């Protein structure tokens, strides 16, 4: 395995490292034996272990909480004793209760379930061994991406299996609220965080002191999802900065020598909750998380979900990453426990690191042949999928072509070398029988059959049924985006601007990145590196000639360019529909609750009239992302006055964004676009 450092100091890996199937041994030996194995992790050298009670005591007695309690008591007129009592209650609700016996129980159950669900769980052993070393030296933060509920305990399970201290895990409070399960999770090391902390100062203080104390003590690694939520689209989310800041602050304030961040990329061949997610995106309400609900979902256990990859990324030293970005002397002149707003410098650094982690997680993911097929299926006309069927040999031929492209773009592809290619693709399709089925040399999109239907399906219902399948396909396609998105945005820029001038293309590239900032996460301040990367990838796969001034499509590169551009097209079409709604049909002031169904109606209408090809405009995820991006571009502003999340729409600004996106405004004009991130 070779690491190469890029300019920003992060490592890229080549993908020859060994992935080992950890289920294989479980299938051969006794599950109970595994659960009861002697667990002897090498502990952190910086300090002794710390019990739950000691940890909670340290938090409650911290100088920081004293300050905050006093402040709150002053503000609210309540007594300090009461505030501190409240803090104790909050901490009780929050804190984990990690116990080895629960880990064993969890391990036993996990083995049983995982063996049934997955054909294999691949883990990169080299990543594990570097992690093991890192855990002895510095506090370690495990940062997995979050695509499925299965993520939640898999890391603990793997670490338990390989004698590495099991982590303390930040989880949403909805999980802790579950009967029994909540307590089991706590005992497996989960601590719970309320979703909307908002302005609850005391809660915020207790949480941040709790997290910082765990990091300072370093006795167990901490695990949290920098994206905050589970992604509904298999696409990475904009990272949340609050938790990241809490985790990093002990380093900023020199309370620890260093902190090691370990990005972990978890990838699934097939997602357990795929159909749930698609429904959720289409506005079908998600079932509330209850223990019985969880048990009911056990029918999921009957199916095959292929393999799962857990890729432990190279440990990254916060000290090294922050060099030149944080001046730790800034904390020298005030007590470090004093509650203070983070400085702009610290905020920028936290944000940069959080985005970087998302990028590294993305780059570490493993994609399957099915991902490539999903890309191609989505580029076929929708009628081909729903009615006449797509020719199997056409699909497989194109998939093999795409395999080369995705490898050129740096992806880790799980394509078994020993199996004939045709078998690989057949089994991929077979695994995803919930999305497509293959009949007589053709492939069709599966449309949910609802038995005992009393009336014929209305056209609208039919749109939704198709949409469900399309959105599932889109999710699997999204797994390829980390590798394609930058060259694809450049291909789109080439297509829309019809220009070959580098500066014009760069301007348009930046515009696209800005507009799609919530779709495709980019690292703040690194757009020009991203553009360079896009150029060199297009060059590498022979799609374009790159010179000092120009990017010119090459003769043989049309297939690649049009594939890449088509990859982005659904996003552009969806955004155009929404922009059109906002600038023409919608009110000046509207709430998110009004916006989502209204746009969905408009999109359905357009799909039925044949004006719109993509069903992705129906996804609430896309709709919310657009609103967030428009707020960022200041074309939409949030009015503070109301509770209802009202938005003020600047119709002219929205219209001009639409015009730039359709190429009506030449790229030269873009230089004046307000662009905070450049």
């Amino acid at each position, binding site marked *: 395995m070779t690491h190469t450092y890029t300019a920003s100091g992060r490592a890229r890996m080549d993908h020859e490292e060994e992935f080992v199937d950890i289920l294989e041994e479980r299938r051969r030996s006794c599950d109970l034996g595994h659960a009861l194995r002697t667990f002897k992790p090498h502990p952190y050298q910086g300090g002794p272990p710390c019990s739950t009670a000691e940890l909670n005591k340290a938090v409650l007695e911290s100088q920081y909480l004293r300050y905050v309690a006093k402040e709150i008591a002053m503000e609210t007129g309540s007594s300090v004793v009461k505030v501190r009592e409240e803090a104790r209650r909050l901490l009780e609700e929050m804190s984990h209760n990690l116990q080895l016996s629960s880990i064993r129980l969890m391990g036993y159950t996990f083995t049983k379930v995982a063996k049934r669900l997955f054909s294999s769980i691949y883990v990169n052993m080299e990543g594990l061994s570097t992690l093991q070393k890192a855990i002895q030296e510095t506090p370690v933060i495990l940062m997995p991406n979050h695509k499925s509920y299965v993520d939640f305990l898999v890391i603990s399970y793997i670490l338990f299996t390989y004698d590495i201290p099991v982590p303390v895990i930040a989880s949403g409070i909805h999980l802790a609220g579950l009967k029994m399960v909540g307590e089991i999770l706590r005992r497996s090391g989960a601590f719970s965080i309320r979703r909307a902390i908002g302005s609850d100062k005391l809660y915020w203080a207790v949480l941040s002191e709790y997290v910082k104390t765990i990091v300072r003590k370093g006795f167990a690694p901490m695990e949290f999802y920098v994206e905050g939520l589970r992604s509904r689209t298999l696409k990475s989310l904009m990272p949340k900065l609050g938790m990241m800041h809490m985790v990093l602050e002990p380093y900023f304030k*020199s*309370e620890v*020598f*260093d902190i090691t961040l370990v990005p972990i990329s978890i990838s699934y061949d097939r997602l357990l909750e795929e159909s749930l997610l698609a429904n959720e995106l289409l506005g079908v309400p998600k079932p509330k998380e209850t223990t019985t609900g969880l048990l009911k979902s056990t029918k999921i256990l009957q199916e095959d979900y292929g393999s799962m990859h857990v890729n432990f990324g190279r440990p990254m030293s916060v000290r090294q990453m922050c060099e030149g970005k944080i*001046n*730790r*002397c800034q904390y*020298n002149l005030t007590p*470090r426990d004093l509650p203070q707003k983070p400085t702009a410098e610290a905020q920028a650094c936290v944000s940069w690191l959080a985005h970087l982690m998302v990028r590294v997680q993305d780059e570490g993911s493993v994609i399957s042949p099915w991902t490539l097929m999903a890309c191609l299926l989505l580029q076929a006309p929708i009628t081909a999928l729903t009615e006449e069927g797509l020719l199997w040999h056409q699909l497989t031929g194109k998939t093999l072509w795409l395999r080369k492209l995705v490898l050129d773009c740096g992806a880790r592809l799980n394509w078994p070398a020993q199996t004939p290619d045709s078998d690989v693709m057949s089994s991929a399709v077979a695994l995803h029988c919930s999305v497509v089925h293959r009949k007589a040399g053709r492939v069709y999109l599966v449309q949910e059959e609802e038995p005992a239907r009393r009336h014929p399906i209305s056209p609208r219902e039919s749109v939704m049924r198709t949409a469900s399948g399309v959105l599932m396909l889109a999710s699997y396609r999204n797994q390829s985006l980390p590798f394609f998105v930058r060259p694809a945005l450049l291909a789109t820029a080439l297509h829309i601007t019809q220009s070959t001038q580098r500066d014009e293309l760069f301007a348009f590239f930046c515009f696209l990145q800005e507009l799609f900032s919530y779709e495709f996460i980019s690292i703040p301040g690194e757009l020009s590196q991203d553009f360079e990367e896009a150029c060199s990838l297009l060059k590498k796969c022979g799609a374009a000639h790159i010179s000092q001034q120009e990017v010119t499509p090459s003769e043989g590169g049309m297939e690649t360019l049009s594939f890449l551009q088509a990859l982005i097209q659904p996003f552009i079409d969806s955004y155009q529909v929404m922009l059109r709604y906002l600038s023409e049909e919608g009110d000046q002031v509207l709430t998110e609750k009004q916006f989502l169904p209204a746009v969905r109606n408009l999109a359905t209408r357009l799909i039925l009239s044949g004006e719109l090809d993509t069903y992705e405009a129906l996804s609430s995820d896309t709709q919310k992302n657009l609103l967030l991006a428009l707020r960022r571009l200041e074309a939409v502003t949030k009015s503070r006055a109301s509770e209802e999340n009202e938005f003020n729409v600047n119709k002219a600004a929205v219209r001009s964004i639409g015009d730039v996106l359709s190429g009506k405004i030449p790229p030269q004009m873009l230089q004046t676009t307000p662009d905070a991130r450049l």
Partner: protein
Amino acid sequence: MAANGSGGGGSDRQRVAQQRLRIIAGHLRRPADDDSDVRAAECKAPQSESDASAEGKTVPRRRQEIMKWNGWGYNDTRFLFNKKGQTEFTGKRYRLSGMILPGLQDWFENTFGASVHHKSPATTILNSSAVQPPTLNEAFVEELKSTGVPFSHDAEDRVFRANGHCLHEIFPLREGKIGRVPDTVVWPNCHNDVVKIVELACKHNVCLIPFGGGTSVSSALECPPEETRSIVSLDTSQMNRILWIDEKNLTAHVEAGIIGQDLERLLNESGYCTGHEPDSMEFSSLGGWVATRASGMKKNIYGNIEDLVVHLKMVTPQGVIEKSCQGPRMSTGPDIHHFILGSEGTLGVVTEVTMKIRPVPEYQKYGSVVFPDFEQGVACLREVARQRCAPASIRLMDNKQFQFGHALKPQVSSIFTSFLDGLKKFYITKFKGFDPNRLCVATLLFEGDREKVLQHEKQVYDIAAKFGGLAAGEDNGQRGYMLTFVIAYLRDLGLDYYVIAESFETSVPWDRVLDVCRNVKARIVRECKEKGVQFSPLSTCRVTQTYDAGACVYFYFAFNYRGLSDPIHVFEQVEHAAREEILANGGSLSHHHGVGKLRKQWMRDTVSNVGIGMLKSVKDYLDPNNIFGNRNLY
């Protein structure tokens, strides 16, 4: 023994003084040929060379007669590994002298991955031809001659005044490499001599660099390479008399060239002491203490140099600066003493100092406490400081340094002692459950009335007990203090076997003490690794002083440099990184070593732009032509 020379007096005071002398002699034994009268002498006429050495002062004009030119301390004193795998400490001057240290070689080889078979010996003879011929200002030399103040252009004399004891100064000397050295050495005998020299230097535009004890560890004595004028080293070592003792006010008026051990010895004979005992007190001078804002081990009782000074006299190019009275405190604008304290030879020469003295304490007792870990130890020191009950000295060594100290244990004379040692170890590690790789030791020194000392001792041990501390005996305590006096000799031993070492210090608020210790030590380890050092370094620290609002932390670091092409460069990079780390952790640029040229790149950040401007404006007024051109501080 030194103490016996002046014995015989029957008064209580003298009895106490003798006891006191015995204690001092404990770590500072010196030959018996000292002269012991306290003279309120007039400035003497210039003496001939032979006079000076015959007089038997600790520091002769020709330092080479007793001291090493490319290592620490006395010529007759050094560590060596003998063929039996034991370590010897030669000479007769120290408690440890002539003793066998059975554990040191093992510790040395294990800690550094070094081997006694891989030697890197130093050049022994100073080769005068390697020294550049002096650049002389003839007119200055002519006029200097007429004043009768002794001076020399001898190569050896000049080399001896060209360096302090930073590693990067000593290392090239060991290889026989000699850089820019002063062109002339001049030995004034009194304040008036200094006035004459400074006047001449101004008149003829030569550069003056004051030289006291030569123990600088901040590159302060290095001749600035950019200096083109003739450089004159003004050696104050012959200005070493106690001019008077004022028993009513408990002050003594002393010439600034006197070195610490002489000052204490001479005062002791009258039943007094200053109590100022920096680790370098064997060689460092009173003027040097003033010029660097020195700190003594027993500052908890006696104060640091700034607390001890009552009156100062300094010769500057603008004339002599001094206050008109000896009031113990004044509200007369900014204290002009504070322009002088810490001026590091950039403004003038301190010639005479009136300082506080105290009767020699009746009773002195060492002690030590073992803590389960460093965190507990620091918490205990913090509590001691909070209760303001620190003994004369309290120091906390980390685990590595404790083990280091342990390796310096002399051969035990009886089986019984070694049995007792084994028992103690068993009690602490097995019975009390202390992890031998985590425990740490505080060393204590109590001073005063016997009764009060015992009471005080109990108070401190009671506090220690709250933090899991166990009393660990006087021996361990005393050995801890001994370590500081022999450490510089040990560095020379290391240098003989490819191991380079340095110490540095800082002061830091209490809440950051643990962070500074942990982070700086870790930084050193990481930097060494990154810079290609093949062996893991020794990176250790101790908390050496407590204050109300913080503490002084002292670091040692050392590594085996085999396999490095430019060890000094690597070393400097690591040291630089360590200082950056200290500053990032809220530590100060220096607690008592000073800035010199080694740390001046950080001065602006330390005192702000305006602060630098203030300092420079004083310099511009006092010394517009940069006669005192050592270029320290800024």
